[in-house]
């Protein structure tokens, strides 16, 4: 088989891009580990950069890539359900914090939507971009569904959701340390609310209690934000 035909064959099976996704993540995670898990060396961000570069280099379109990578993507569903196990294990702690949690949830959800939309609007972003931006703090699948209902572009929302996740994961530790916040329930809840699963993954890497509250915030915000956006958005973008 010539190298060209071999390459054509590899494009037709999920194997190549699935393997490439795992390879990119292992390399990125090794880098993050070598950097002492410093927040700025984010494993998700580096993986995306490596794979994006590889797609450009080989002239592969995203759909071909996703045909392989979809098997990894699919596991987001059962992984969300799996958050139920640590949440259940820490349920006593959750119950003790039910009021702070409820208040922070509603204020945080509204700030997340309003601040993003107003800043982007002020900088001249067009209406379809503002719609795609509004649900950026919630988990990708739900955010895309919200955008679709409002007539925006769901794939753009996915990109903004991931970017928000990576940003929150990078910002949260230095920000909370600078503020002197030592309550890991509060820290975790904030990053899960602002930055969904990527924030939650970061929280689990820092502290197990932070991880539990981040997972909780992510789950609750996936319910609150889709309910708030249809009310808030017309008022924000007119």
């Amino acid at each position, binding site marked *: 088989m010539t190298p060209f035909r071999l390459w054509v064959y590899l494009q037709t099976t999920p194997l190549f891009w699935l393997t490439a996704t*795992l390879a*990119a993540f292992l390399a990125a*995670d090794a880098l993050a580990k070598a950097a002492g898990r410093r927040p700025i060396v984010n494993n998700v961000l580096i993986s995306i950069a490596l*794979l*994006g570069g590889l*797609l*450009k280099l080989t002239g592969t379109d*995203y759909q071909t*890539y*996703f045909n392989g990578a979809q098997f*990894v*993507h699919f596991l*987001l569903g*059962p*992984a*969300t*359900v*799996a*958050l*139920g*196990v*640590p949440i*259940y294990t820490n349920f006593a702690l959750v119950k003790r*914090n039910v*009021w*702070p949690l409820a208040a922070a949830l509603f*204020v*945080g959800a509204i*700030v997340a939507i309003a*601040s*993003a939309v107003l800043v*982007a609007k002020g*900088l*001249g*972003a067009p209406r379809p*971009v503002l719609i795609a*931006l509004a649900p950026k*703090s919630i988990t990708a699948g739900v955010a895309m*569904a919200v955008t679709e209902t409002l007539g925006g572009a769901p*794939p753009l929302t*996915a*990109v903004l*959701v*991931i970017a*928000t996740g990576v*940003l*929150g994961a990078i*910002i949260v530790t230095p920000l909370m340390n600078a503020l002197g*916040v030592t*309550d890991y329930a*509060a820290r975790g*809840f*904030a990053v899960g609310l*602002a930055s969904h699963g*990527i924030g*939650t*993954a970061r929280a689990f890497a820092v502290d197990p209690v932070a*991880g539990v509250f981040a997972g909780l915030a992510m*789950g609750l915000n996936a319910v609150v934000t*889709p309910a708030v956006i249809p009310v808030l958005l017309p008022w924000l973008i007119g």
Partner: protein
Amino acid sequence: MIRGFFILLGFQLIGEVGARGLALPAPGPVIGLALLVIALSLYRRWRPFDQEALAASDLGQAARGLLAALPLLFVPAGVGVVQYLGLLREQGLALAVALVVSTVATLLATVGVFLLVKRLSDAKADA
């Protein structure tokens, strides 16, 4: 391990069916998560277990394995950015500023309200 994955997928399936069938506002996996927490507390009343038993169970192992891989699971969706390089060249600055400002504002508002209400409710409990 197989049983653990079966339980997780089973709850996701029930969640998806419930979300679509009853037109609930929450996404399927989130309903699956809530049902799993409820099911675990009901099961414990029937057959008591401790945290270590849960962690060592098929479900505990499958959940731990998946959650350890959580960052990886966001990579395929994130690579979708390659489809929007043109838009990012035009709107990139506005979007970057909006995302950074909003992420910091959201973290501050959430952690601030959480700590404030916690202090208020603790003070009330002590009084």
